[in-house]
């Protein structure tokens, strides 16, 4: 379906522009797991203002979506316990691996970072294998 490709491209371009805006104004990498994780104890950072503001804007998008475009947030395809397991693994893994789809995927690949390229290939591979395996029994 061609329109889904266009929405993906448009949304992706907005994500790239948002990351660029944060780099231009604050000199920071727009990695969601890093921005969120660095606010959490016991290794929280002191420089919180821009992080809280950036996450606030991100959360505001979700609130606006709930009001005007609820279909933009899709239903889960897994049971609630599996979603919780998935969330915990994502949280632990992104902090251990220093990034997620935004920090490694968008910002890192754009800067030709070797670490990010390896990370992206790794999480794409394990993601594909897991989605395939999980599709068989849930």
């Amino acid at each position: 379906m061609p329109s889904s490709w266009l929405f993906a491209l448009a949304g992706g371009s907005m994500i790239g522009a948002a990351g660029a805006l944060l780099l231009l104004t604050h000199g920071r990498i727009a990695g969601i797991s890093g921005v969120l994780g660095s606010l959490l104890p016991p290794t929280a950072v002191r420089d919180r203002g821009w992080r809280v503001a950036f996450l606030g804007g991100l959360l505001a998008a979700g609130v606006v979506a709930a009001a005007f475009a609820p279909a933009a947030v899709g239903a889960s395809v897994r049971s609630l316990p599996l979603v919780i397991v998935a969330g915990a693994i994502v949280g632990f893994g992104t902090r251990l691996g220093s990034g997620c789809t935004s920090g490694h995927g968008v910002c890192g690949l754009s800067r030709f970072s070797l670490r990010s390229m390896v990370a992206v290939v790794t999480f794409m591979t394990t993601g594909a294998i897991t989605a395939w395996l999980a599709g068989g029994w849930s």
Partner: protein
Amino acid sequence: MTAVADCGLRCRLLSIVLAVVAGGLFGAGLLISGMTQPARVIGFLDVTRGWDPSLAFVMGGAVVVYALAFRWIRRDRRDPWFDVTFHLPTRRDLDAPLLVGAALFGVGWGLGGLCPGPGLVAAASGSITGLAFAAAMIAGMFLQHLSARVRAGGSA
């Protein structure tokens, strides 16, 4: 431009507003692109069941825009607007935490169909799935910080 050190109230306010705008634009991009739809994400990751490759254009579009902007922003080594320097990763080594962490992240992403940004956006939309995912994700991050501290010998 102005550095944080000599940044007045209006300038600080503007810096916060622009960070909110960046976050909002990021979230809107996630919503429009389809990344907040677990079924789409899993349909992209699982290449064996009617593969939907369209989400590749999310990262593709984002990387093209960010890469071009990155070159422009860094063109003459000017400082960012609201900080005295850029905070860019400098490490180039491939270590076990990077590989294990990325592998784990992929497992969680392929299982739930949500990565951190879409998880937070879904939570803010009030979806039970999103709230459960985000709470578990924050707990997982906290656990990683704790385990890293224990490994480091409990020192600050």
